[in-house]
């Protein structure tokens, strides 16, 4: 007969191994309950209130009012009294920003890995060592330095363009491009807006940040691709050659086949990182012009730090959670489809 157990012992599991496991978990569990789980639960409560700066003054002792789903509706319907806030535009731009970046990183990363993998290339080691440099520089520095480089008056990019333009006899005055603040978008058809929808046109700042993030992002892709390339057995190419496969066929059926399982999980990881990339948007374009390069993360920061609408900011964070959850679920699907994965 099975002895009856109390609910507590059932909850805590039975046997030595379970009890020891809990001992190992206790420190992390205690710390996370207090500073992670409780604040997140508190955030959900806050999201249903009109909490603002005034409620933080403990001496006044004011308690925020319960407003139901008002914050959520205001965010989703873009009804916040904040300049340039359009939720749909932020989400679409944010997705587009991540997709465009990852696609470029992937193609450039693989292409340069292939270039450095060519047999007999001189100075290969030197190039590999130098090309890793962008990875080791903290993103906050990269963002501030590139913001400086894209300066309209004295920035390096305009100076470089002017120097090149001089060869073609162009006046340096042509190259006073205001990369980060120009309102007009250079390419209209790229992300078209629809009637009644938000203004999705991509300002010049988008391309400036795309260039910056390309500089920042391709090297690590290249490292991953190089690892995959080096794992391809040489005999495969020899065998293919014997069977009369053309170089193009070899590339498609051997090289790409080996690259794919390595690159897809990494591309998904890169997608999530780029999706939440705070520093470029914050330090380079400041989300502008007119909020057109605002990301979810920078908007969340502004709601908390600048507008100080804590209730709205909490609702915004909860909505962000569900967007990221959806992305993670899709990403997990994609990863599972390409390799085995265990929780």
């Amino acid at each position, binding site marked *: 007969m099975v002895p009856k157990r109390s609910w507590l012992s059932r909850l*805590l599991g039975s046997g030595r191994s379970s009890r*020891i*496991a809990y001992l*190992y*978990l206790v*420190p*992390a*569990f205690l*710390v*996370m309950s207090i*500073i*992670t789980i*409780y*604040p*997140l639960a*508190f*955030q959900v409560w*806050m999201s249903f209130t009109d*909490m603002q700066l005034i409620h*933080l003054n403990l001496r006044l002792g004011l308690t925020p009012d319960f407003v139901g789903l008002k914050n959520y509706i205001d965010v989703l319907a873009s009804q916040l009294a904040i300049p340039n806030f359009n939720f749909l535009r932020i989400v679409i731009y944010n997705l587009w920003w991540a997709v465009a970046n990852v696609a470029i990183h992937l193609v450039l990363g693989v292409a340069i890995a292939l*270039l*450095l993998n*060519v*047999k*007999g*290339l001189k*100075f290969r080691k030197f*190039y590999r060592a*130098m*090309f*890793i440099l962008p990875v080791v*520089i*903290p*993103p*906050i*520095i*990269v963002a501030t*330095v*590139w*913001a*400086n480089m894209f300066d309209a008056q*004295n920035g*390096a990019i305009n*100076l470089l363009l002017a120097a090149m333009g001089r060869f073609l006899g162009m006046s340096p005055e042509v190259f006073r491009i205001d990369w980060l603040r120009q309102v007009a978008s250079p390419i209209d058809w790229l992300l078209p807006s629809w009637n009644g929808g938000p203004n999705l046109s991509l300002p010049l700042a988008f391309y400036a940040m795309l260039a910056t993030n390309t*500089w920042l992002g391709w090297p690590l892709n290249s490292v*991953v691709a190089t690892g995959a390339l080096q794992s391809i057995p040489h005999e495969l190419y020899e065998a293919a050659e014997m069977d*009369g496969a053309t170089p193009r066929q070899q590339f498609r059926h051997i090289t790409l086949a080996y690259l794919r399982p390595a690159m897809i999980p990494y591309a998904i990881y890169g997608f999530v990182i780029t999706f*939440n990339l*705070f520093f470029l948007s914050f*330090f380079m374009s400041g989300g502008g012009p007119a909020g057109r390069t605002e990301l979810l*993360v920078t908007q*969340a*920061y502004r709601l*908390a*730090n600048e507008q100080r609408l*804590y209730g709205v*900011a909490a609702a915004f*964070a909860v909505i962000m959670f569900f967007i990221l*959850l959806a992305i993670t679920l899709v990403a997990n699907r994609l990863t599972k489809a390409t390799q085995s994965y265990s*929780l």
Partner: protein
Amino acid sequence: MSAPSVSRSQTRSRFALWSRRGQPGLVRQFGLQLLCLFVLFTVLFPIVWVVSLSLDPLNRSRPEGLTIIPDGATLEAYAQVIRQPTNNAISFLDLTLNSLKIALGTSLISVGIGVSAAYAFSRLNFRGRQVLMIAILGVLMLPAVATLVPLFVLLNSVKVDLPLLGQFNLRQSLLGVGLAIVSGLLPFAIWNLKGYLDTIPRDLEEAAAVDGASVNQTFLKIILPLAVPAIAVTGFLGFIAGWTEFYFTSTFLSGNITDHTLALALNAMVGQFSNTPWSLFSAFAILFAVPPAIVYFIVQKWITSGLAIGGVKG
């Protein structure tokens, strides 16, 4: 194998300039080098630009053109930045110490607490394991910015009164910032370390179990020594996250100048209404970036060798 293809590869090898197999010919090597040099130029351009800017004399607020070594190159900017980088009355050393406190404190605590939890998740069986793992994954998914508001409000309501540290508002202190960072860093450390422990083969532990080793002995004598590289990498990634932390420090520490960090000073130097000479900004950026960059170079092999080990969420 058909005859034509043999003869084709023979003709090809006669033209050494274009040879595809073995060593590339001269023309091809030249073309490849040109491509590599172009990539090298794009990689180095911003770095050379910043180094060049940092050598400008202090009385030159903006550069005069593209140079590698500017006219009148000097290290004045570095000297000035080390004395006092911004208008705020705090020296570079104090900023560095504050950044170090946050970076070291948060990464040590997260890895120290995280490794035992990671061991439990990786090796021990217990009820609720799946649920807890999913909870950690859920927290990991959220970027740090999304926890800014509740941590701000909650820490703001805590008044600390300790014998050694004195009386202060937890939100407006390095301790509060540290707690907020650990809130996101600990789940990351657990997940990352668990991922690594999962890859350690179980043979050794099974052998130890046969010899009668307890769970604790296995953890301390077998797992911990084997996990040193992962602990080092996780600790380093946590360190970098703390070293450049911006969301919490900028939101929490407003006004409290003596607690400011390097990231806040950088923000003050590039702010919208800042007219800091670019030489100062560049010298500061270099001093800020070089220490972690050097360590990154050293541990880089470990970081990229196992990409189960990812970056810290930003």
